[in-house]
């Protein structure tokens, strides 16, 4: 059958017409093979423009359509829809970009017109070989997986669960709550972190739509948008969650104390423990590494005292498969390891602590019951807070950790509130960008905190004068005065930055999420798709994407939930048909393509000894097509015939 092609050359107002002689291009198009009609038009994308194309299809019996206008990213969907409205398969359409790639990049009218002609010719030759393709739809499983039970994951899970959808919330620690559960007060409002967090934690624990899987992690995640399978490893707590009432008898009676991770090692916990009293779930875990029963084979004090017989040393690790349609990865951050900055003496000088340790010191239920004390039990008379530890530093992380300036101000406030100490803040730049943040900074300036602008060179216990004896001396260049200062203090608090989780590489691999240069997860678009990833149905939220404070983390948790709900309410998703197809007859079974596919969309069929594409996973990137030594793979709408025709026309 001879194709009947219609060509439409758009002026785009003056955007194209200024440098391209559109009428000339349309005249030229009419001379191309199979072209039945060619018109130039002011705005092809306008309603009358689209109507013109539709009319031509109906009245002239067009079988193929070419529009020469802007980038396909802009209006390909518009024209495909118009073509489909007129009864033609939307893939029997081709767009030639004569704006971004032609009229906008030159002033030379003649050259631009020639270039536009070549593009139109290429599109006409290509479209001749286009085939009708069918858009498949797959249903979306309304269940959702949320990974990470910090404030971000909690917010996301609650939003989704409240709308009546089922959520699996996976947390690797024994309790949800994340870093926020360890903080004392939050900036800039100074409300107590626990007071605003615990009600949300309780809601998660009691929510009928949330299945909480703590002490667990996701070991495998496969499938495609709307239809994922997550394999979750639930580590044994050695305490039966059904029987345990969380009475705490076992914790009290357990004879073995070890340093508590939750308290940064400043306080103790038992071998059977909840990280903190408000833990959700309230069921304790037995730390197998230390528990006397597991290490020495004897003790069982907890068994004796548990009124419900909930202790179960025989519990085993469980692997649970759950089916979900989408996921939110909210795995958070790690704090920078301050001992890497040797000149600040963390780990060497006893009264140099991290800001997280300070949170525990000042927390009412922390190891000192909220008293800010030195290692010798005395109150400090002077305190230095050092900003940007591990941040904005070529030796460690180049980026700004965003939260340290503000939490340092909060730290200063708490020290001033609770002690008589003089407080020095050593900062590079003060970054108080959020709502109420600058006001908070101003408030601190009025609280007699001494701000020194300059990066600290070192913290030393080597005194150079009698006033420095027995003190920690903070050495810094005061860049406002242009002098080197030596400030003797009793306590140094290092405001450590935020880093990607240690295991982010494995998590990224499990969920096929890319990472940016700084190591954090990469969003689909930094401005317009901040919680989406390159993979449909997989969302990221919170500090796993980059340092974030609590308000931003909560906003992202909710944003990711909105994305998930929008996906669920669509009920089904369309799968792009421009995917790779493997011709089983030609496939030699060399297995090159499965390893190359960035979306894990190609499997090897052991029985037939050929590679097979999972249509729903394929993104149509074309890597396998180019790599196949047998030429057995072809990508729909990018077939060899189509591409060669296009190239031939351009080169003609």
């Amino acid at each position, binding site marked *: 059958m001879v194709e009947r092609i219609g060509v439409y050359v758009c002026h785009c107002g003056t955007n194209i017409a200024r440098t391209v002689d559109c009428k000339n291009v349309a005249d030229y198009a009419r001379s191309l093979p199979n072209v039945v009609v060619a018109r130039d038009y002011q705005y092809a994308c306008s309603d009358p423009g689209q109507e013109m194309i539709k009319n031509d299809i109906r009245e002239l019996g067009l079988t193929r359509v070419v529009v020469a206008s802007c980038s396909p990213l802009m209006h390909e969907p518009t024209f495909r829809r118009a073509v489909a409205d007129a009864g033609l398969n939307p893939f029997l359409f081709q767009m030639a970009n004569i704006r971004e790639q032609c009229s906008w990049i030159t002033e030379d009218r003649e050259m631009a017109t020639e270039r536009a002609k070549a593009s139109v010719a290429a599109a006409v030759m290509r479209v001749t070989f286009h085939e009708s393709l069918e858009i498949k739809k797959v249903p979306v499983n309304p269940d959702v997986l949320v990974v990470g039970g910090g404030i971000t994951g909690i917010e996301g899970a609650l939003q989704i669960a409240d709308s009546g959808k089922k959520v699996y919330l996976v947390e690797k620690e024994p309790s949800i709550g994340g870093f926020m559960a360890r903080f004392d007060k939050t900036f800039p409002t100074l409300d107590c972190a626990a007071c605003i967090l615990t009600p949300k934690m309780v809601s998660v624990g009691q929510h009928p739509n949330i299945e909480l899987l703590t002490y667990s992690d996701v070991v495998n995640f496969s499938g495609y948008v709307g239809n994922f399978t997550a394999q979750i490893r639930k580590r044994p707590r050695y305490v039966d969650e059904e029987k345990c009432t969380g009475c705490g008898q076992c914790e009290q009676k357990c004879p073995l104390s070890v340093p508590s991770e939750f308290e940064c090692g400043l306080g103790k916990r038992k071998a059977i423990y909840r990280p903190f009293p408000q833990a959700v779930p309230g069921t304790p875990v037995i730390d197998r590494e230390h528990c006397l029963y597991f290490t020495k084979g004897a003790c069982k004090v907890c068994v004796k005292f548990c009124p419900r017989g909930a202790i179960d040393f025989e519990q085993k690790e469980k692997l649970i498969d759950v089916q979900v349609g989408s996921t939110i990865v909210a795995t958070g951050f790690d704090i920078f390891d301050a001992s890497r*900055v*040797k*000149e600040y003496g963390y780990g060497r000088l006893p009264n140099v602590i991290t800001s997280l340790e300070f949170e525990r010191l000042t927390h009412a239920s922390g190891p000192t019951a909220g008293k800010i004390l030195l290692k010798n039990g005395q109150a400090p008379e002077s305190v230095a807070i050092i900003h940007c530890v591990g941040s904005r530093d070529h*030796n460690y992380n180049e980026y700004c950790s965003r939260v340290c300036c503000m939490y340092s101000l909060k730290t200063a406030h708490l020290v001033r509130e609770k002690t008589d100490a003089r407080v020095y803040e050593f900062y590079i730049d003060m970054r108080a960008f959020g709502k109420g943040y600058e006001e908070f900074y101003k408030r601190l300036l009025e609280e007699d905190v001494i701000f020194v602008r300059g990066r600290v060179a*070192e913290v*030393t*216990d*080597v005194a*150079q004068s009698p006033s420095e004896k027995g003190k920690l001396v903070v050495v810094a260049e005061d860049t406002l005065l242009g002098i080197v200062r030596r400030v003797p203090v009793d306590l140094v608090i290092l405001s450590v930055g935020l880093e990607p989780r240690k295991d982010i590489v494995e998590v990224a691999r499990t969920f096929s999420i890319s990472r940016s240069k700084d190591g954090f997860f990469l969003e689909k678009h930094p401005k317009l798709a901040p919680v989406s990833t390159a993979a449909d149905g997989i969302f990221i939220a919170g500090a796993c994407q980059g340092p974030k404070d609590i308000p931003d983390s909560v906003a992202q948790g909710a944003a990711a939930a909105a994305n998930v709900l929008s996906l669920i309410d669509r009920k089904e998703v369309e799968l792009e048909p421009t995917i790779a197809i493997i011709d089983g007859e030609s496939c030699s079974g060399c297995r090159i393509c499965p390893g190359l596919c960035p979306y894990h969309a190609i499997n090897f069929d052991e029985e037939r000894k050929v590679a097979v594409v999972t249509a729903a996973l394929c993104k149509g990137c074309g890597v396998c097509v180019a790599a196949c030594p047998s030429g057995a793979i072809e990508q729909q709408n990018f077939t060899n015939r189509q591409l060669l025709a296009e190239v031939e026309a351009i080169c003609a």
Partner: protein
Amino acid sequence: MQARAEFSYYPGCSVEGMNKAYDKSTRLVCKALDIDLAELGDWNCCGATSYMSIDELRAHLLSARNLALAEKEKKDLVVVCPACLTTLTKTNRYMAENSRLRRTIGSALKAANLQYWGSVKVRHLLEVIVNEVGEHEIKARIKRSLSGLKVAPYYGCQLTRPFGGIDDKEFPMMLDRLLTWLGVQPVNFPLKAKCCGGMLMMTNEEVALGLTRNLLECAKQNGAECIATICPLCHMNLEAYQGNVNKLFGTDFSVPILYFTQLTGVAFGFSRKALGINEELIPSQALLEKHLEVLR
């Protein structure tokens, strides 16, 4: 260390003059450790830090000539002076990163029938001994015990900075480890990578003496009986100017200063004379005798 390690040896100007003992002890210790040090023939000034700050290009040229000579030998270049290490490494790096400089230097070298492709690695002897030779080989050669001797490990400013890559830049530990292997006790020495006063001793002696005083005081306070050095200039400032420190500050320091190679040599059983220990200004004989104990 399996095979005998071979290196070109760049002594540098200071060990030919003021610091002969460093050179002597270096050669002895390396021989004992089966490190073949072949002195680089016809070497010249490294381009030194002072030269570098006045005429950078010419300093690079001096430095590059040494590198070109070393490349002919197809061996890594070992230095004992951290200033030489810094200067030679600087030229090496700049030539690798800056093609214009590479061409300029290249054409200058050509005039002397030399060329440099950038293959030479410049290493400090301490790093070679700690990283390449290692604990096992060191311990196997110990003949005399110095146990109980408390030593302040002093690295000075230039071993790890500015280029780094061999130890922590601000708080190195290599010398601490070596001393432990030798059976002596490195004391806590927080000023281990701080400035000795360097060239300021010539231009602003009072400031330099203050810095030297800080080092001596810190070593003493932490119980050190002597200071181990790895740099000829640090060594000289600490030793030759101790009297001036005492005069200026009214102190009474009498702290022996020993090269790390001398301490290693003593433990390996070499005579004090062979190690140049009889040449120092602040005698260490009594101190060493107090702790020495023949093992085998």
